């Protein structure tokens, strides 16, 4: 209600307050609060909690807070005042005559409010005002307007009190606006409601309103009684969106001016620009310092904030901490439960001063997601939005491979060499044989003539499974999101409600869709002036029924899913088709596998529920001290019902495998009963958080501002479990199933896998509880601002967790940080006109990486179920104990410079940082005789250096506004120390992994030097000891110095440039991203004939293979001799990891385009909505504009291991279009 800073001014805040309510003509919606609130129940809760709070901890204060209840309609003022006097025991001083002459009738209906609050309401529309004098004396007096008279005669000498509200273009209050009386040192800031007050302002003075992200505004003080003003500020660069008003650290909202830490924010505009995507994914290519790793397989988190701070050993988290509103997203909870439409902004906390408030879990950076909330004093607002995303089919032709016809030629050649003879003659397990080989085998056995065989084979040459997949299996994925929300707020109540429905259809034809329903509500009340209560409920229901088509890439390329007539064809699986067709004639179920049938038969249904309840209460003891309590409960559960009816391959296969034709007793003949199989599973997570904080915000004199936050927090994730059960012989019509399944005794496998052996019926029943993680933290931070240009900040935090088997002292980790900023442009000596704003920031401090899983003592872990043979319970030995084990610590130093140039046409910041991780948990390899292979200890250390530059410019103004956002970030992480005796060898760097070797880039990639092909044999050749060599084994273990160390596999530099052009309601925004200084490995031809069926093992490089001496002059693809040389596997490995396949990955690409049109209804009152926005958003365009080296593969999506079959095509393009209407 009132700005704390007001009260520090001598001369009477109380008088001020009185005035505020005498002339509220321009402040909005004051009338609303008079009405009795319909939500009586909620009010009761409010009161109850208010009383609880007061009773619990504030008995001292209670006597000062007299409460009154008033219920009057058109009552005389005097009567109301006497009622207040009676209830409160306050004294009342008034002029009876004046009251009778001037007082207006009073409408009021309040329960248990403070005297002050009651008076405020009572005097709201009165020409009179009040003052509380001394301790408990109410003076009623006429509203004084002497200034008016004086100003008329002697304007220069007169003074007036100015107060008002500052709102943005949307009418939302703006906090942290500097209000300055020009030519004086008088200044103040707006509070959270955008309100400010300045006492004793010269009546002809000019007020200057300045704010980081808003255009400055000058206001000439008007004489007279209308000094309650409403100022509407414009956002500085409307389309920009990255300049934030406040920074939400998850603990507190700090105005950017006083925030010394490093952060980046996607505000509402920037966030919603990328519609149709996940929440965290929207940071990709839009925020400096955040890097997304898209490589197919890797051992590390896909998101990295400013490099890497841990090796991720022994379950140390490698992911940034994600905080939603006040609390971290609990373990086991899925971000997808948050509807992206509910998100207001996403903030990335990057340095110690920003992140260390999250202590030992902030080592990988912190991402704070803030959801939309209602705001006080905001008119009712309804918005409806809807969007549709279409995603292209997967690109099956991305990886070039030999044609079906040539593949058949290879098969014919191999067949003639006897390559398939073992498989053909294998009458034990009957491995799958491709149709061509089958035909050739029959021809050889004299079953057909060579003409017929050739004809049959030739008929297969024209087929390509990818065509079938495109035709019968894949479709465009489709997603739609519908959302509606309303919000609003009076002076005492702010609410937000939203409901969303998301529907998606995956890329498999005939697969059922997934639905998600979300409901989110959040309400804040201020039942009495100093008390705020906030409660929110979030509920998400997911109904997933989609079926993902299996990967068929390991089949021969001419595989067909249907015949010419469209009838489904069997696809060989596990066994040779000939065996399936004849085995156990009449006894077994049909053993054929028809993938398209499986889609039709799929009946899998997952229901996921997520509930989050949060509750907050804050009380302002004085205008500078607030206490708050926040509580959150999260619960998520998922149930899956997967009914595989008797027609599904899984059921038929299991039944057949155990079928025993020699038995007549049906239980023994079909140990797995004939019928369907029902798998049901369920799981649940629960999480509790409770936090108490104490906020001190005190202005000492005019030049000193001290803010202190102290708090304690506990969190407990418990009660999580997962269970699954399988019912055999399930009949979906009757719900009956077989109960007497014998899991304990082995049954013979007459058919199928390893016939003649025995096997157990898979029970699939299980239950496991997840670990209980508890954290206790105490934290404090303080910031001190002097002359609003010097900021000093310090924070400390201590975290404890329930690590098992550690002494209490070692369960705690203390961390701290400090920082300062200096607003140079506010100095008197700074007179550079074209630099209106210049600020220097620096911070230093520590964050950590907690690891709850490592014990200091020797631990045994009991197995869930007893030994099946002995029935004894048993346990396994835990990890080798290390009593000295600590949590990892990350030291971060950051220096930043924020600036605005040329009348704010250009703004931006430059940050330089250094991170030093120490005590990084690493596994020391130990000799096998020790009984363990690794010993976990705090051995490694790493350092990251980097910088971030971001620039925002307003290139044109006027009807066409053209703005540009540019950012360049650099982060390079080097392992400074690690205890490992491996890592100096060339082969240790060939994978896309964390290759922790001292002095090397953490994601280093190496390769073997290439010496071309052997002119005589076409063998790949490398160098060993300076000589051309084919001793591959020696090359692998050669020192990496002698081979090739390329550099990082992850970009060391990343950049984006986004141009936004708006004209009238149209906005076009184009985002171009760049990634630089890194390497990728192109997939290589497999030189091995052994995976005979897999079409993907023969890349199109096969055509370029060395075939005769002389070929080495124009090809690097080695020969593929047959019979394969005995060292084929090393030959293959050498070639795959040879230098020639590693390419510079640097590229610049067009990532996305956003086109929108917004129409604001400013005049036409008959149209019920205020604005309407349409947008079209193509994403994942992955249109490479420039690349450092030619390659047909997209460097950012090149697969993990470099295997042909690990090639992942870039994420298909998506096209989103949608509309938002605000009412």
């Amino acid at each position: 209600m009132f700005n704390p800073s007001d009260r520090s001014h001598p001369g009477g805040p109380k008088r001020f307050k009185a005035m505020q309510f005498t002339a509220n003509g321009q402040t909005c919606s004051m009338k609303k609060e008079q009405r009795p609130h319909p939500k009586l129940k909620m009010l009761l809760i409010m009161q109850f909690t208010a009383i609880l709070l007061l009773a619990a901890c504030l008995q001292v204060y209670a006597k000062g807070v007299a409460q009154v209840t008033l219920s009057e309609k058109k009552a005389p003022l005097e009567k109301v005042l006497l009622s207040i006097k009676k209830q409160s025991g306050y004294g009342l001083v008034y002029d009876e005559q004046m009251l009778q002459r001037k007082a207006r009738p009073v409408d009021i209906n309040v329960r248990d409010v403070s005297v002050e609050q009651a008076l405020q309401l009572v005097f709201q529309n009165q020409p009179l005002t009040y003052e509380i004098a001394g301790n408990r004396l109410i003076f009623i007096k006429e509203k004084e307007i002497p200034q008016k008279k004086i100003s008329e005669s002697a304007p220069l000498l007169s003074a007036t009190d100015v107060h008002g509200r500052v709102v943005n273009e949307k009418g939302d209050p703006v906090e942290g606006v500097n209000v300055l009386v020009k030519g004086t040192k008088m200044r103040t800031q707006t509070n959270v409601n955008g309100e400010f007050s300045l006492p004793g302002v010269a009546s002809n003075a000019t007020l200057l309103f300045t704010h980081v992200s808003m255009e400055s505004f000058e206001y000439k003080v008007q004489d007279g009684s209308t000094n309650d003003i409403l100022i509407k500020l414009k956002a500085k660069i409307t389309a920009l969106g990255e300049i934030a008003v406040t920074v939400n650290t998850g603990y507190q909202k700090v105005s950017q001016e006083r925030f010394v830490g490093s952060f980046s924010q996607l505000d509402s505009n920037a966030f919603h620009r990328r519609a149709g995507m996940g929440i965290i994914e929207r940071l990709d290519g839009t925020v400096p310092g955040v890097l997304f790793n898209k490589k197919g397989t890797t051992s590390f988190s896909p998101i990295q904030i400013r490099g890497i701070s841990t090796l991720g050993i022994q379950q140390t988290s490698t992911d940034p901490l994600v905080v939603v509103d006040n609390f971290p997203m609990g373990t086991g909870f899925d971000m997808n439960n948050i509807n992206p439409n509910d998100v207001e902004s996403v903030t990335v906390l990057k340095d110690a001063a920003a992140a260390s408030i999250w202590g030992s879990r902030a080592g990988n950076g912190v991402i704070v997601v803030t959801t939309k909330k209602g705001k006080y004093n905001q008119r009712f607002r309804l918005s409806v939005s809807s969007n549709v995303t279409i995603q292209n089919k997967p690109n099956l032709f991305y990886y070039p491979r030999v044609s079906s016809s040539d593949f058949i030629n290879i098969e014919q050649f191999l067949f003639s060499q006897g390559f398939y003879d073992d498989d053909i003659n294998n009458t034990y397990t009957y491995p799958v044989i491709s149709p061509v080989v089958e035909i050739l085998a029959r021809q050889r056995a004299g079953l057909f003539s060579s003409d017929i065989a050739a004809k049959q084979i030739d008929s297969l040459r024209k087929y390509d499974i990818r065509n079938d997949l495109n035709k019968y299996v894949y479709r465009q994925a489709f997603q739609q999101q519908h959302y509606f929300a309303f919000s609003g707020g009076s002076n005492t109540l702010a609410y937000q409600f939203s409901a969303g429905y998301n529907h998606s259809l995956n890329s498999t034809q005939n697969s059922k869709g997934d639905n998600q329903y979300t409901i989110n509500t959040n309400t804040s009340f201020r039942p009495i002036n100093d008390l705020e209560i906030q409660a929110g409920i979030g509920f998400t229901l997911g109904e997933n029924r989609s079926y993902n088509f299996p990967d068929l890439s390991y089949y021969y390329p001419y595989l067909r899913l249907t015949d010419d007539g469209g009838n489904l064809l069997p696809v060989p699986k596990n066994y040779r088709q000939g065996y399936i067709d004849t085995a156990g004639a009449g006894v077994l179920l049909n053993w054929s596998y028809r993938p398209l049938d499986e889609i039709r038969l799929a009946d899998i249904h997952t229901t996921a529920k997520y509930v989050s309840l949060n509750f907050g209460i804050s009380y302002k003891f004085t205008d500078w001290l607030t206490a708050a309590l926040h509580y959150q409960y999260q619960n998520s559960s998922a149930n899956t019902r997967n009914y595989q009816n008797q027609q599904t391959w899984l059921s038929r296969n299991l039944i057949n495998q155990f079928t025993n034709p020699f038995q007549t007793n049906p239980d023994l003949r079909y140990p797995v009963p004939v019928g369907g199989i029902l798998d049901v599973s369920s799981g649940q997570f629960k999480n509790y958080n409770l936090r108490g904080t104490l906020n001190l915000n005190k202005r000492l004199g005019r030049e000193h501002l001290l803010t202190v936050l102290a708090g304690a927090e506990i969190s407990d994730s418990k009660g999580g479990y997962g269970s699954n059960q399988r019912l055999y012989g399930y009949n979906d019509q009757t719900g009956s199933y077989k109960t007497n399944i014998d899991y304990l005794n082995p049954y013979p496998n007459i058919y199928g896998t390893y016939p003649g052996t025995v096997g157990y019926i898979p029970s699939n029943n299980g239950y496991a509880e997840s670990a209980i993680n508890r954290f206790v933290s105490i934290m404090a931070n303080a910031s001190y601002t002097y002359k609003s240009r010097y900021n000093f900040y310090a924070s400390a935090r201590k975290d404890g967790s329930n690590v098992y088997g550690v002494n209490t002292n070692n369960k705690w980790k203390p961390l701290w940080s400090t920082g300062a900023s200096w607003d140079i442009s506010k100095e008197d000596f700074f007179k550079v006109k074209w630099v209106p704003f210049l600020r220097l920031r620096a911070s230093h401090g520590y964050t950590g990486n907690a690891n709850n899983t490592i014990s200091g003592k020797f631990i045994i872990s009991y197995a869930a179920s007893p030994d099946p043979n002995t029935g004894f319970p048993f346990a396994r030995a835990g990890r080798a104990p290390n009593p000295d084990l600590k949590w990892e610590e990350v030291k971060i130093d950051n220096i930043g410079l924020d600036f605005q140039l040329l009348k704010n046409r250009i703004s931006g910041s430059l940050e330089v940082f250094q991170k030093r991780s120490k005590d990084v948990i690493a596994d020391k390899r130990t000799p096998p005789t020790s009984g363990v292979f690794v010993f976990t200890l705090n051995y490694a250390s790493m350092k990251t250096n980097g910088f971030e530059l971001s620039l925002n410019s307003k290139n044109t103004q006027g009807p066409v506004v053209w703005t540009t956002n540019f950012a360049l970030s650099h982060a390079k992480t080097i392992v400074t120390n690690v205890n490992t005796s491996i890592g100096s060898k060339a082969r240790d760097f060939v994978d896309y992994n964390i290759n922790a070797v001292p002095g090397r880039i953490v994601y280093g990639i190496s390769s073997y030097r290439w010496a071309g092909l052997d002119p005589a044999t076409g063998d790949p050749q490398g160098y060993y000891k300076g000589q051309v060599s084919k001793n591959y084994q020696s090359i692998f273990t050669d020192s990496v110095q002698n081979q090739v160390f390329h550099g990082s596999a992850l970009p060391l530099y990343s950049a984006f440039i986004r141009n936004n052009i708006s004209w009238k309601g149209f906005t076009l925004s184009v985002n171009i991203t760049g990634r630089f200084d890194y390497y990728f490995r192109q997939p290589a031809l497999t030189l091995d004939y052994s995976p005979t069926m897999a079409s993907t093992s023969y890349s199109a490089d096969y055509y370029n293979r060395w075939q005769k001496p002389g070929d080495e002059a124009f090809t690097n693809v080695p020969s593929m001799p047959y019979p394969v040389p005995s060292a084929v596997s090393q030959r293959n490995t050498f070639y795959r990891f040879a230098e020639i396949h590693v390419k510079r990955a640097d590229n610049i690409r067009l990532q996305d385009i956003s086109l929108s049109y917004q129409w604001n209804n400013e005049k036409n009152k008959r149209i019920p909505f205020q604005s309407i926005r349409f947008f079209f958003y193509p994403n994942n365009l992955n249109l490479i504009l420039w690349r450092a080296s030619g390659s047909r593969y997209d460097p950012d999506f090149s697969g993990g291991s470099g295997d042909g079959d690990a090639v992942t095509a870039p994420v298909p393009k998506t096209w989103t279009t949608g509309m938002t209407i605000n009412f």
Partner: protein
Amino acid sequence: MLLQLLLILLLLTTGCKKFLDQKPNKFDVIPHTLNDLQVLLDNTNAINAKGTGSYAELVADNYYVPASIWQLLASITLYQPEALNYIWDKTGKSYDYGWDFPYENPVYYSNIVLDQLPLVSVNSGEDQKYNALKGSALFYRAFAFEGLAQLFCKPYSTTNANELGIVLRLTSNVNAKSTRATVQQTYDQIIADLKQATDLLPATTSFPTRPSKAAAYAALARTYLSMRDYVNAGQYANLALQQNSTLIDYNTLVPLGRPPIKSFNPEVIFHNYATSTLASLLPRFHKIDSTLYQSYDANDLRRTVFFKGNTGANAGTYFFQGSYDGNGLYGPSGIFDGLTTDEMYLIRAECAARKGNKDAAMLDLNTLMIKRWNNNGSWAPFTAADATDALNKILVERRKELLFRGLRWSDIRRLNVEGANITLTRNIRGTLYTLPPNDIRSVMLISLGEILHSPDVQQNPR
């Protein structure tokens, strides 16, 4: 009021001590009682499954692998060490699991128990339990050491006594140094531990996965036999048989069940097997040496119980199905290398023959063989002209009885020390690979991990 809030905070922090004492996982326990240690040793997958038998069988001569399979294995990085060990390749690669597994579980777990025993609380009346635990730990460790000694150091003899032995790891401290003992020290340790175990172990246990007195005697008999101390070997075999002398009449196994021989059958004194990563020993890959198969008499039931004929293109070849690990739970390639009564009969018989006691030797042999013979009236007792003849007959039956038990390799080395002159050969598409008697390659290479991380452990020469 500030003070009060601080007080609340303080209360909160003192309350946290208890809050943070919550165990993260229910199943994690710091061992406090004897029972907590017993459950470690009852982990049969760790304790009874890490035998050395499969490695010993890989390099021995009971089977062969068709050339095509061998070539396939040789071309796959994962199976290369196995393929090279199969031909005793000189440039060789260590088959790492052969060394690592026994140390990883039986030795390490036993050391944990031996180290923790003095630390846990022992209630009155638990002395027997305490003794059984200590005896078990000593036994498991010694049993693993014995298996390792057959592969990674030279066979015991007076000349080899001071040669490099195995690593005698006697502590659970991960950071302790590993060094190689001498052959003499290796066997001294095994024998001392087993002898101590005979005093501590109970006469009977509920399952043969837990060692009994008989198991310790049997292990001593096997150890002394490999040391060619035939006096002690015979004595301990006798002691073992005094505890348990049951034999299965193979006639009762017909018609054959699947599998023919069950686990924990009455002949098993101590249950142990080798989880194998070896593809060569899979039923569908290995083929029984045809001469060996032919040596079984038609009325010898072992011919049908142990072997199963392949079909199709492989018809005429046989694979082994007579494992004593029984139910096939551990995969078709698990090699049973535990202790059994039939082995004890054969040890006692061999020792009697070597002592010159032909009759006692033949009595034991016939006690065993009658249980293996078809009771269709074809049984005629084995006879021997003299003690040497008896010995030879016993050795023949020993091989035929105890094949795929991991014992053949140890026998080859032991007998070659005595001049038996057994040369092993492999034939791959016409290329002959041989392992002459007492060749340097009959001592296996130590695992690469050990050599890399234990600077003091010396690799065996090649």
